[in-house]
C-alpha cells in the first residue's frame, strides 16, 4: 500500500521519534511511505470556536493527500479532526469522503487494516497504558490499542484504575483553565499505583506532553512518557 504519512505538528515539533517509529513500522509491513507537504490539522482553531480558521488546514490536507491509498498519523486526535473536517467542509467532494474513510491513527491501521493480533516483539519494561480520549471515544476504538502490546515479551502491562479518565490536555482547554487542567493531570498520575512503572504509553502526543510535562515539572523520573509507536518500534514489531 502507498501510505501517506501525516506527521502532526506536535509530532514534528516535540516528538519526532514517534513519527520516525511510525514510518519504520509501516515499512516493515511492506508499505511505501510518502510524505506530502505537512501542516496542522486545524483542531486548535476548530475546537476553540474558530471553524473558519480551521478550514484552510483541512483544505491543505485534502489537496496534498488526495488519492492516497491510506493516510496514517501517530495521533487519534488529529485523525478525528481530519475525518470530521473533511466531511463537514468538503463533504460534497467524493474524494474528501473517500479520504476521510482511509485516514487512520497508527494502532487503528495496524489492527483494522493490517489485521494484526498481538504481534510478536521483545521489550523489557513495566509500562502503563493511557487510553487517549479521542482515539477511545471519538474514533470509538476504546482500549483496543492494548491488543498490540499483548505479544511483546518482557513487557509488563499495567492499567489505570480509571482508564477512561481524561489527562486534562484538551488543546486550548489547558490554557483556558490551567489550574483545572493541572488538577486533571495530577488525578490521572495519582491513579498510577506505586512502584511507578518505567513507561507511560499513549497514542497521542497531546496526552504525553500533558502528563510527561507534569511529571517533569515535579522532577519525577518515572514513568517516562513514550508514544505507542516508539514502544512497538523498539520491541521490533513487524521485524
Amino acid at each position: 500500500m502507498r501510505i501517506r504519512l501525516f506527521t502532526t505538528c506536535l509530532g514534528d515539533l516535540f516528538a519526532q521519534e514517534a513519527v520516525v517509529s511510525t514510518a519504520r513500522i509501516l515499512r516493515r509491513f511492506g508499505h511505501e511511505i510518502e510524505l506530502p507537504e505537512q501542516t496542522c490539522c486545524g483542531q486548535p482553531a476548530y475546537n476553540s470556536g474558530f471553524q473558519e480558521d480551521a478550514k484552510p488546514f483541512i483544505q491543505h490536507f485534502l489537496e496534498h493527500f488526495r488519492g492516497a491509498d491510506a493516510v496514517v498519523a501517530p495521533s487519534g486526535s488529529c485523525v478525528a479532526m481530519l475525518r470530521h473536517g473533511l466531511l463537514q467542509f468538503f463533504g460534497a467532494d467524493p474524494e474528501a469522503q473517500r479520504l476521510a474513510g482511509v485516514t487512520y491513527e497508527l494502532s487503528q491501521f495496524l489492527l483494522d487494516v493490517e489485521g494484526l493480533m498481538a504481534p510478536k516483539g521483545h521489550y523489557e519494561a513495566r509500562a502503563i497504558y493511557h487510553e487517549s480520549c479521542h482515539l477511545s471515544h471519538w474514533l470509538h476504538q476504546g482500549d483496543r490499542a492494548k491488543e498490540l502490546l499483548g505479544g511483546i515479551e518482557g513487557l509488563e502491562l499495567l492499567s489505570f484504575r480509571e482508564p477512561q479518565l481524561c489527562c486534562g490536555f484538551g488543546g486550548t482547554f489547558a490554557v483556558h483553565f490551567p489550574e483545572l487542567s493541572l488538577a486533571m493531570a495530577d488525578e490521572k498520575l495519582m491513579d498510577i499505583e506505586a512502584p511507578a512503572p518505567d513507561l507511560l504509553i499513549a497514542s497521542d502526543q497531546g496526552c504525553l506532553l500533558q502528563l510527561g510535562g507534569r511529571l517533569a515539572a515535579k522532577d519525577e523520573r518515572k514513568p517516562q512518557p513514550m508514544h505507542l509507536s516508539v514502544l512497538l518500534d523498539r520491541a521490533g514489531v513487524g521485524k
Partner: protein
Amino acid sequence: MATEELAGRVAAAVANRGLHEAVARSVDRHSYAAIAALTPDVRRVYKARARAARLRSVRDLASLAEQFIREAERRRIVVHTAADGVEAVGIVLEIARQHGARRIVKSKSMATEEVELNRQLATAGMQVLETDLGEYIVQLAGQRPSHIVAPCLHMARDEIAGLFSREAGREIAKDTPSLTAFARERLREEFRQADLGISGGNFLVASEGAVVLVTNEGNGRMCTTLPKVHVALVGVEKLVADFADMTDALRILPVAATGQLITSYVSIVRGPAGAGEEGPQEVHVVLMDSGRSEILGGPYEEVLACIRCGACLDICPVYRQTGGHAYGSVYSGPIGAVLTPLLSSESEAQALPFLSSLCGACTDVCPVGIHLHEHLVALRARAAARGIAFPAEAGAFRALRRLWTPGRRYRLVRGLMRGALRLGGGAPQLRAWTKGRLLPPVAPRHVADLLIAEGLIEEGR
C-alpha cells in the same frame, strides 16, 4: 468577559480539594453501579430503543402537547401553558394565591430550579419546603443543587450533620440512619400541614393525560397526594406519546442515574381524586416551553431527548474536579454546558461550552445517545461568532491560519517558534501552559529530514 468569570469560578472550585474528594467519591459510586447494572449488549439495546422513542416524541412535540391537553382536561386536570419562565412562575403564584396557600411542599424538579420558583414563592410570603432529601439539605444550606440527580453530592457528611443539628436545635449524629430519621420526622409533619404540593415531572404521557414522577424516596407521591392542590411544572420536552414509548426511557433512566434496575417509586398522576377517593381536589399542569421549541428542528434538536439522568456529569473528568456550582448555571456538567446556552441568551451562558476537555466520555455514556461533545464544539463556534471567546484568541488563530497554510510557511514558522521558546518567550497562551508543565524543546529540523536521512521516504518536500 463571560469566559474570564467562568475561568475564575473554575479556579476557585479547583482550589477546594475537599470539594473534589466529595464529588469524585459520589460520581464514581454512580458510575460503577451503572456499569455493573447491565451487560454492554443489553445496554446497547436499551439505548437504541430509548433514543428512538425519545426522538420520536421530540419530533412530534406540538401534536403531543395538543393531545396531552385534551386527555388531561378530560380527566379534570387543569392544564396551563407557559411560554417562558416568567409566565410559568406567574401561573403557579396565581394558583397558590387562589387557594390562600401558606405552606408548600415540593418534590425535586429541575424545571422549577430553572425559573427560580422557590425564591419567588418566598417573596410572595409563602413557605416552601423541599422534600427530596438532597434538595432539603441544599435548601437548608441556602445553596442550589449541584447535580441533576443528587443535589447535595458536593457536601461532606459532617456538613450535613451540622446543618441538621442547627435546624433541630440539638446534636444530630452523622450516620445515615440518624440523618434520615431527622429528615423524615421533620418532613412528615410538613406533608400533613401543607396546603399545596408542587412537583416536576419525568414524563408527560399524551395518550393518558398523565404526569409520571420517578423518585427514590416516595416524597414525590406524598407531595402529589396529601395536599389538597397539586401543581406540576414540567418542560414541554417531557412529553411522550404513550406508556409504551415511555417504558424504554423509564427503564434506562434509573440505570444510568444510579445503577438501579428500577427506581423505588414510579408515580402516575391521572387527575384529582374522585368522589369518595382520597387525594388532591385539584391538579394543575403547567406546560413550560421556555426556549424548548426554539431548539426544535435545528442542529441541537436531540438535546431535547435528555432524560436528566446525570450520567454525563458522573463520567465527566471536569465535573468531578469542579462540582456543579462552578458552572454557575442550573444545569451543570456536559448536558448543562450544552443546554444552558440553548435555553438562555445571556453571554454568561454562552461561555459554558468551553468548560470541557472534549474527551467525549459523555457522548459514550449518554443513555439516549446525545452527541454531547459535538454539540459543545458547535456551540463554541456559535459563541465565538457572537464575540464570546477567550481574549486574543480570534487574532491568534487568524494569524496561525495565515502562517501555517500553505504548509511551506510552516517550516519557516517552526524555526521562529523554536527560537522564541528557547529564549523563554512566546505567546501568553504558552506561558499559561508552561506554568506547572515543562515543554520539551522544539526539534531543530523538520521531521522530513530525519525520514529522508533514514531512507524511509523517497524524498521530502
